[in-house]
């Protein structure tokens, strides 16, 4: 009883200092209950990152726990000798092409789903949702046969197509959700002013979709950048391979060059970290718009 009464005056005193008085109940949480678990979890999150930086920056054979003396030898080696420079180009190409293709195709389909009522709509939505459960990994053999038929084995086009196809359903569901959030009356007003449907879309709707499109496009890029199996299966020519395949090759070598592996890992991470920093603020708002609940 006493303990329940005791903190009450304290709360009253501290309340005016807080900008958001509405959250008293949760503001009461003792600081150590936040910082202690958070610090423990941060250690778990950050030690692996530190570990890979350490291996990438300290000279081969060193067992020091600080990357000093620092060397960039591993990066040089992995970029030229291990052809990560080439893999990087291929990965960028695959990532950007997947981004553009996914966004354009999903934008068209998403607009149709958001603004029209048509007979196949329900079936199409169902197909989109069901395709979420089709694992690309289990379709490797038939996909390989299709691309062989199209003479696309060993061409980046096969990986771009495969990545795009598996990104499409979710992207389309997300984009149609974003378009639905734009009131149709805005577009209708533009029609009245003499705009064609396409012009109205371009001038009125598209600018409002920018945050959503950034999120969807970034997802597509990061996914294509990270994904490994399609590139491994469809690109046997070493000069066509992507960064994740290069990393896997480094890991499977008879004697693993840990420094090169770490440097390669950092090369793989940099673009993703940049994209992530860029989209983080859209992430939470995008998800809380409820679009992901499709």
């Amino acid at each position, binding site marked *: 009883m006493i303990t329940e009464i005791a903190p009450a005056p304290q709360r009253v005193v501290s309340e005016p200092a807080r900008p958001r008085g509405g959250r008293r109940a949760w503001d009461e949480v003792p600081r150590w209950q936040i910082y202690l678990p958070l610090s423990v979890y941060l250690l778990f999150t950050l030690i692996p990152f530190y570990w890979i930086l350490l291996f990438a920056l300290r000279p081969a054979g060193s067992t020091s726990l600080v990357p000093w003396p620092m060397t960039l030898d591993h990066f040089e080696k992995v970029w030229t000798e291990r052809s990560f420079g080439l893999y990087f180009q291929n990965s960028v190409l695959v990532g950007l092409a997947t981004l553009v293709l996914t966004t354009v195709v999903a934008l068209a389909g998403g607009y149709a789903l958001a603004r029209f009522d048509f007979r196949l709509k329900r079936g199409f939505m169902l197909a989109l949702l069901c395709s979420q459960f*089709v694992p690309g990994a289990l379709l*490797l053999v038939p996909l390989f046969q299709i691309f062989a038929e199209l003479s696309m084995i060993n061409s980046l086009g096969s990986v771009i197509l495969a990545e795009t196809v598996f990104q499409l359903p979710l992207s389309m569901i997300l984009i149609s959700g974003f378009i639905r959030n734009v009131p149709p009356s805005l577009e209708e007003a533009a029609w009245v002013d003499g705009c064609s449907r396409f012009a109205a879309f371009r001038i009125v709707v598209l600018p409002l979709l920018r945050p959503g499109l950034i999120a969807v496009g970034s997802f597509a890029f990061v996914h294509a950048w990270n994904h490994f199996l399609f590139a491994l299966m469809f690109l046997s020519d070493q000069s066509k391979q992507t960064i994740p395949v290069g990393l896997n090759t480094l890991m499977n070598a008879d004697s693993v060059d840990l420094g090169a592996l770490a440097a390669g890992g950092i090369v793989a991470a940099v673009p993703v970290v940049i994209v992530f920093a860029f989209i983080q603020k859209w992430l939470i708002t995008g998800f809380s718009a409820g679009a992901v609940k499709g």
Partner: protein
Amino acid sequence: MAQQPIRSTHRLKPVVSSKGTPMAQAAAVAKPPAPPRRRRASATPRRLPYLLIAPAALLMLGFIAYPVLSVFYYSLQHYNPTKPWRNGYAGFDNFVHAFTQDPQFWDTLLFSAKWVVVEVGLQLLFGLALALIVNQTFVGRGLGRALVFSPWAVSGVLTSAIWVLLYNSQTGITRYLADLGIGSYGTSWLSDTSTVFPAAVVADLWRGVPFFAILILADLQSVSKDLYEAAEVDGASRLKQFWHITLPHLKDAIVLSTLLRAVWEFNNVDLLYTLTNGGPAGVTTTLPLYVAKTSVNGHNFGYASALTTVAFVILLFFSIVYLRLSKFGGEK
């Protein structure tokens, strides 16, 4: 069981009506203003929506639907390019073989189930805890969020590369732990059948927890603060507030993200393929990994297709549960 989810969604509908599924939104948006829009749309060809979805539909038909059908077809065939004399119609031989004569099928299926349950369970638990923590107001919250979420975008292969460095017997973390007197030198957690499972689980948790934390945090933003104030006035403890306000609010998000993640964890082979390659002694081989090896190394496409079909049926079961819980088609 069959009625329960639907009834509960109707009860919850007012709370989530602003979000809902795209279908629900479509129904809500499309029904009332339909007459004026119909007239408008008549200015454009009726084919327009079909033209707009055509590229997506064609791509999905060609590269998802057709491969799925061909998997079904090959599951009923003996098909192995390296043994052409055996190729031909097989009936249900491949399925019978899987269920009766292939202990590896059962082992990998069981391991898949164990992997999914442990991973999704732990990811949810830690993700929920993490989301609740970073939802508080505290100094350094922005930085804290950015840091704890950061492994989210790291690929499976890169996760493997990082943890291979950490688990390495000569230069990994075990060596430094041994320096401190914990454990012994030369231990490699990834090559011992008794430690490989927890080692792989931890590596995947590192990357998987932020997914749940992000989704749950997003949903936490929409809990009405008035509810907590009312509970506060009534003298409810924080634990009670969590149990009676926060958790019911998060229910939908948790159910959906758990199912989505379960399917994703079941299907994903990147991490285990590169981290353990299913080993040592096959103890970390999931069903999809076994399928990939059967078809790629063994060239036994017919049998691999049958195993894929079994995996589809399992996933279909999950899909149905998922669609029910996500209220899909629940609006009448």
